[in-house]
């Protein structure tokens, strides 16, 4: 029943906290290999959508399908295992660990040899961990952090922390990547680089990307499809050009902020 080109589909996702409806009947189908955007004013329910898709919240109603199979209601680690990875709005790195360790933790779920193999010093374990370290270094190289591999993650500058969080997510080998405000706190130059970076990883890792972003320039430039939330309701959906001229969007959101954009 799924169309071939759709990797992840949300059907009628609703999230209520007590009496408050944070998201109401959010439905979206994300084309494989696309970069999509989820926008809306603060408190519109964007992060709640992310939390429902990634299993942190169990939707009150509705379902999520990945490659046609339902994944909603499963715990976050299983969702991640199925190929959905994410970053957080307020960066959540493992601050006491090194940059390399952060990426290795991301690789953990594809690891075959477990703790017992480590204690028993099985050669297969050493081989696998060596291969994992090599792959982690490649990933760090891809995000331009290889030279910082031994640094403590919390000591990195802000922009590098954002990239590390993405590298760590990539280490889980996702097919669908959710980025929660990746450009927050970046200057225009950095945002420009980030845009190119997101395009690159999409090509390089064969990803579909869904991002929440307030930087309209970035969203309009990079996204092929955009969903607009306001007070938990989807008020518009479509290509950037259509979104920009949608009166409801302008009224709800773009009106004051991006009249000059």
């Amino acid at each position, binding site marked *: 029943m799924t169309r071939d080109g759709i990797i992840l589909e949300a059907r009628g996702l609703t999230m209520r906290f007590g009496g408050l409806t944070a998201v109401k009947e959010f439905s979206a189908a994300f084309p494989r290999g696309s970069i999509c955007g989820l926008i809306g004013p603060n408190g519109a329910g964007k*992060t709640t959508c992310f*939390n429902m898709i990634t299993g*942190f*919240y169990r939707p009150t109603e509705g379902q999520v399908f990945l490659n046609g199979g339902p994944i909603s209601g499963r715990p976050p680690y299983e969702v991640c295992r199925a190929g959905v990875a994410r970053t*957080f709005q307020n960066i959540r790195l493992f601050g006491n660990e090194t940059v390399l360790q952060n990426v290795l933790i991301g690789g953990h779920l594809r690891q075959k040899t477990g703790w017992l193999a480590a204690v028993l010093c099985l050669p297969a374990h050493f081989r696998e961990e060596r291969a994992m370290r090599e792959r982690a270094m490649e990933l760090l190289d891809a995000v331009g952090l290889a030279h910082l591999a031994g640094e403590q993650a919390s000591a990195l500058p802000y922009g590098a922390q954002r990239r590390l969080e993405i590298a760590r997510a990539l280490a889980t080998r996702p097919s669908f990547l959710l980025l929660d405000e990746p450009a927050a706190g970046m200057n225009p130059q950095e945002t420009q680089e980030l845009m190119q970076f997101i395009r690159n990883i999409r090509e390089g890792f064969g990803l579909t990307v869904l991002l929440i972003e307030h930087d309209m320039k970035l969203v309009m430039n990079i996204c092929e499809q955009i969903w607009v939330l306001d007070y938990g309701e989807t008020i518009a959906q479509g290509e950037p050009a259509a979104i920009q001229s949608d009166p409801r969007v302008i009224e709800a959101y773009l009106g004051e902020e991006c009249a000059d954009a």
Partner: protein
Amino acid sequence: MNSAMFIQHLLNSLTLGSLYALIAIGYTMVYGILRLINFAHSEIFMLGAYFVFWGVTLFSLPWPLAMLLSVVFTAGLGILVDRVAYRPLRDAPRISALISAIGVSFFLQNVAIVFFQAIPRAVYRPAWLENPIILGEVRLLPLTLFVPALSLLLMLGLVYVVYRTKTGLGMRAISKDIETSYLMGVPVNRIIAITFGIGSALAAASGIMWALRYPQLQPIMGGIPGFKAFIAAVFGGIGSIQGAVIGGLVLGFIEIMTVAFFPDLAGYRDAFAFILLIAILLYKPTGLLGARQEDKV
């Protein structure tokens, strides 16, 4: 079991329950504000009882005066503990303050061993609490009436402070949101100190009455009642004063009645509370009256 005995047990559980409740209030108030399990609270309870003992035996003070002074002293001690061992850790990870609290608890307990010696001591009891009143088949110690009555009085006083005074308003504000309270100009540190003072005073009152009820003093006497009172606070919903009172009474009731009806289980008496604790934490961690707190993703 006849009804007279049942009434006897009921009054006993009321006595025990109100003693638990008084201690539980201190735990719940501190936890409500600082999210800290004040392990030292059970030692405050113990010291309250000892201060009266020394006041009466060493300084020959009249009992009511000794009691009053003890309550004042322990309140001061509670404030001092907060000032020295907890306040510097307000911005530290929560577990740091907890470890500090465990340290203070051991410290006070062993200071008591050093000064008062580990051997149990008999407690002076005013005679008027000892002469039983006989009502038909029910044999009543004035103590079993005195303890709940005084407890009730103290609790009413507390409710007045918390709900009718500016300090109480500050307490409630801080327990909702300590950061915002700072910003709104609530004198946070002073109010926390007052909270420790009040909680400690109630614990001391409980300790003094505990020593009347079970007339033996030991430096380790605070441990088990303190723990059970903490459990009562969790049961009632930690952070809620009404919850602590209800939790204390329920726990007292369960304990007395289980031992009364199933004497075989008396040896496991101290385990009941812990089993209750684990059960609550697993099935309703917010307790009867507690508010829910979600982890923010």
